[in-house]
């Protein structure tokens, strides 16, 4: 990850869509809320059953409707409440990253994360990483910014 000053790209993004699974994803974001752990207000959470439910359609829908970055947050590896939904999603995102790279866009604005319901820090850490990676994408170019 190249170093990037987050302040530099502040204001250049305001819509980050995060799909969080009903189990550890939602749990960790709730724990972060209860612990009053601040994060970027651009991060908005969509509740889904499992990250394995999120396909390219949802990700492209989000990007198509103005999202600057899209992420999936699921349970830890081996702790998916539906067995391997998080792994499927991880694989899918990896393939999508590859596709974006081949199309000439940055691969830093779609990501998959894991979090732990008991630890709000994990969710906040994920959100911070999303923002950091998005900033890298913005500074290096390759976002959808100038496409339309």
């Amino acid at each position, binding site marked *: 990850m190249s170093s990037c000053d987050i302040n530099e790209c502040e204001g250049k993004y*305001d*819509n980050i*869509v995060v799909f969080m699974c009903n189990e550890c994803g*939602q749990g960790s*974001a*709730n724990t*972060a*809320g*209860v612990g*009053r*752990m*601040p*994060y970027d*207000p*651009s991060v*908005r*959470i*969509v*509740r*889904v*059953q*499992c990250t*394995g*439910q*999120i*396909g*390219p*359609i*949802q990700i492209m*829908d*989000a*990007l*198509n*409707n*103005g*999202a600057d970055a899209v992420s999936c947050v699921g349970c830890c590896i*081996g*702790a998916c*409440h*539906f*067995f*391997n*939904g998080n792994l*499927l999603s991880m694989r*899918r995102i990896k393939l999508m990253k590859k596709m974006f790279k081949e199309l000439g866009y940055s691969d830093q604005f779609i990501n998959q994360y894991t979090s732990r319901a008991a630890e709000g820090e994990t969710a906040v850490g994920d959100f911070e990483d999303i923002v950091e990676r998005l900033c890298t994408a913005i500074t290096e170019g390759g976002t*959808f910014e100038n*496409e*339309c």
Partner: protein
Amino acid sequence: MTVKDEKIKNSELAEGSQEKMGFPEDEPRIGVYVCHCGHNIAGTVDVAEVAESASNLPNVVEAKHYMFMCSKPGVQLLKDDIKEKGVNRTVVASCSKNQHGRTFARTIEEMGLNKHLHQQVNVREFCSWVHKKDKDKATEKAKKLVEAGVNRARKLEEVETKKIRTTKAALVIGAGIAGLRATYDIAELGIPVYLIERNSTIGGHMTRLNKTFPTNECPQCSISPLTNGVANHPLVELYTNAQIKSVEGSMGNYEIEVEIKPRYVKDNCTSCGECEANCPVEVPSEWDKGMSTRGAIYKAYPQAIPATYVRSKKDCIECNTCINICPVQAVDFSQEPETKTFKVGSIVVAAGYEEYDPTEIDAYHYGQEGYDDIITQLQLERMLGPTSMTGSEVMRPSDGKIPKKVVMIQCVGSRNEQVGNKYCTGVCCKFATKNAGLVKDMYPDADVTICYIDMRTPGLNFEEYYKAAQEKGVRYIRGRPSEILKDPISGDLSVIVEDTLSQTPLKLKADLVVLSAAMVPPEGIGPLGSKLKILRSKEGFFKEFHIKMNPTASSKGGIYLAGTIQGPKDISETVAHAGNAAALAAQPLVKGYIEKEMLIPYIDYDLCMDCGMCITACNPAAISMNEDGRPDVNEVACKSCGICMPACPTGAIQLLNFRDDQLLDEIVPIAGGGVVCNE
């Protein structure tokens, strides 16, 4: 008026109230309620502004903000609007779905609406509490979250809750300590249990042990009340020499075909032993791990249950001696295998483990010609056992002498990436300590050495047990032996190891080498798994539903895991694990029904092209091809995860209330609204 009376009154009012007021039924009429939660939300988010912006959204008939939505007057707001304004979908922007989502869902259910028509928007944990410093942005975010919630509510569909009747019977696979415990616990709840065992006797590995740690208790004494209790229980049907042939059905109603191989000895056998005494065949006993011999007609061990003798067809030379000598004419060679079908509601899998076979580790020469004095811990247990051929003495298999130097090697087959087992079995340190201590007790002048990588003795009493062994004079050397060498002239064995604590290479002379072999999944776990359609972990054991919260449920509803089939465990853990599996398996059977919300995927057969991708993706195996060659969703087995949705290349399979278009509606405002690229 009691709460119950009030509920009845409300539901009476609700009945037909929508039509009476003249509101069209199919049009969504959404009520939006923004909660202040004291200052928790209102302190950061401008709730009035959020409610105001929500009131301008299409289909919203009512948008309010209130101090505490979860309070009685707050809930009354919902009730009044449903009654008076014809609200048929509610959006409450307050706390998380887990906290008060259910409160509001229950409220609208009381008013005669389906509880799935409530949409909870979390503006406290996801917004006000985490964006305290930026009030404007938090308000903006809350507005968008509420808009997304309204969009989502617009298309919400009713979800039925079905009651599925269950068959009041259970099947337990495997009659080791886990299977016996589960069987007994289920049967004591008044549920008939079919117990299936692959071998000719019940009791499993525990009956083979000599002593159990940390109390050095006789395992036969601890397990025999259970084996007898199960074998004589009026509600338990025990089948030995039996194997699963096929499994059909889903949670609550399974149909299982079991093949039962004949014993060739009728039940009137008195267990006198005349047949085995006169049998001319002598083969190594599998039950004794080759440390004794048995005839072609045999009983695995004296206390075996069932006590009936059994004939091994493959070893028998059909000399008919046993038929002629049996005083009660119990031997019958004409018996045929039979197939039985059982209808059960739950299945408990307790197929146990197998001791790792160290032959593949070449450096340890286990099982090789001329290396007879290298044995495994289970073989040592059999030698020390009260009914052993050696009379409970430790003897070298090569010459029958009592060994003066015993070396035990830990982590054989576990914590070894070369053989593909990364995991720690977790009990080898304890049983090696136990056996070393026992050998030292029997022969105080013998040298007993344990070569270990790490000594793992967690839990109550085990550290003391380890200390006690050290005090007895058992020598512990930290290092993994690289090889066992044999002197070509004298034939003596020596173990090459580096003591990593003092960094000295050692060559330990050994009369007997004992390998602490790992616990590995039992033979035949693969075919069993595919018949049951449950998933396995990468180590080969059956995978639990959730490693922390649901360690006994399998990937498929109605199938539970007990004991070491889920992963290595010691006996106390196995008993606790099996008890939990039994409790879970008995739950739906005692109740008589399963309540299931029909939040399941529906297939658009016009779009479906029968590729079967959803079938492969479905973890609980809830989707299968029907007779017409089209995929079908088993509504009972489905776990509502939606993993099938992205797997479908045509979007034909859609999870109710999580359809692509419903998610899109929710995504649009959250992603910033308006379509950016129209071209």
